């Protein structure tokens, strides 16, 4: 079981993610904005962060940049959680030091397992069938 923070402004998506991860035995905290997400990360010290890149207040990338500057959170896995085109998503995730990418829409059958993949000591990229090698993160 892990504590996961889902930073996602779309309530339908965050509720679905929360439901699937809770069912898989994890504890989930949802934040709808970048600011609330950062506050939640500092407060709860999660094992993993699922980060929507398009947020209504602060860009997801900016939040990730801020997070990586905090010593206490430097190693917290951050997964870009996005509907962006795959090439853009992977390029941005790699540049901003994310540990992986999960693309939307959520695949309800594989989502929890996909998230859990990134909790391993050496995360491997999952769900990337058509990404060129030079864009892969690990």
């Amino acid at each position, binding site marked *: 079981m892990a504590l996961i923070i889902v930073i996602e402004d*779309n309530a339908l998506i965050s509720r679905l993610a929360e439901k699937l991860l809770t069912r898989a035995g994890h504890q989930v905290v949802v934040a709808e904005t970048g600011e609330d997400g950062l506050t939640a990360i500092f407060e709860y010290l999660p094992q993993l962060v699922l980060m929507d890149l*398009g947020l209504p*207040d602060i*860009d997801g*990338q*900016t939040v990730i940049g801020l997070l990586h500057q905090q010593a206490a959170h430097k190693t917290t896995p951050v997964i870009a959680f996005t509907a962006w085109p795959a090439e*853009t998503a992977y390029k941005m995730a790699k*540049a901003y*030091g994310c540990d992986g990418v999960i693309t939307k829409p959520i695949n309800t059958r594989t989502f929890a397992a996909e998230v859990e993949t990134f909790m391993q000591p050496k995360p491997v990229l999952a769900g990337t069938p058509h990404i060129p090698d030079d864009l892969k993160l690990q």
Partner: protein
Amino acid sequence: MTFVDQQTGKQTSIPAHNYSFDQLADIYNRARVDYIVPMPMNGKRMADYVRHYDIDLDASAIALTNNKTELGVIMTGIRGKRSWATRLGVIPEQRGHKIGQFLMELVIEKSRERHIRHVQLEVIKGNEPAYCLFIKLGFQEVRELLVIRRPPGRLRDTLAPVGAVVTPLVDEDIPSYLLQRDPAVAWTEETESLLHVGKLKGLHAKLPSGESGWAIFQCLPFQLTHFVLSPSASSDLAQALLYAIHTQYPMQDTKIENFPAQHPTWPVYQKLGYLESFRRIEMVLELAPDPKRGQNISQPLRHAI
């Protein structure tokens, strides 16, 4: 569900000023929920957007059903004899009924009422339905624009310009530097936009070759954005200025919108760690003078790199 008024048989809309910024942000977010690159807004961001980019809420509109359900949104910026169509979006389940066309025609009509000669917009490259609509309405491509990002991080010393002397600009002098700019910039980066967004900082650099110039940018708590370099800056000068900015603010994320794809300094940005996030196509519609409304004042069509 229809967006045609049952009594008049006409499509209906209501000016955006009838809504709060929170409501406008909500309608916009719902309309763009499945957009290629979702860029959600909250009420504060919407209010800033309206102020920064001279959005005229009387010329901006919400399309409605006859029972007043929102179908889509469009916003219109107006500066002199130019208008800017932006934030166009149609709620996903309402698409396929030409609501986007209805909203665009509304902007064109509002522009004609104001004797505007040029309507401009940007469309994300790859958004074929929107691009085709704009072509159908007579818009022409001007150029491609990049949205570029640079993650926080220190630059390698090897990128440091040799012998460059860099000094900060006095904040009060920044507007006068901006007057020297090449006017061929995207709406969001025009001097009016920059003066509205505020929080501008600037640097001046002089190279051993004698070339000198300046950079102006917006410095937000977590992000650098809205970069302007002095006109005709060489690659060396651009590198000196960008290096100085990112050395001064190494841990700031950077986002620059609507940077001309063919700009000669783009390779310098790339060398300093910038990445293309996505592209937009800038388009312009030249409106013919309407004899019924009187002669419009001509405005030169802006061409840019």
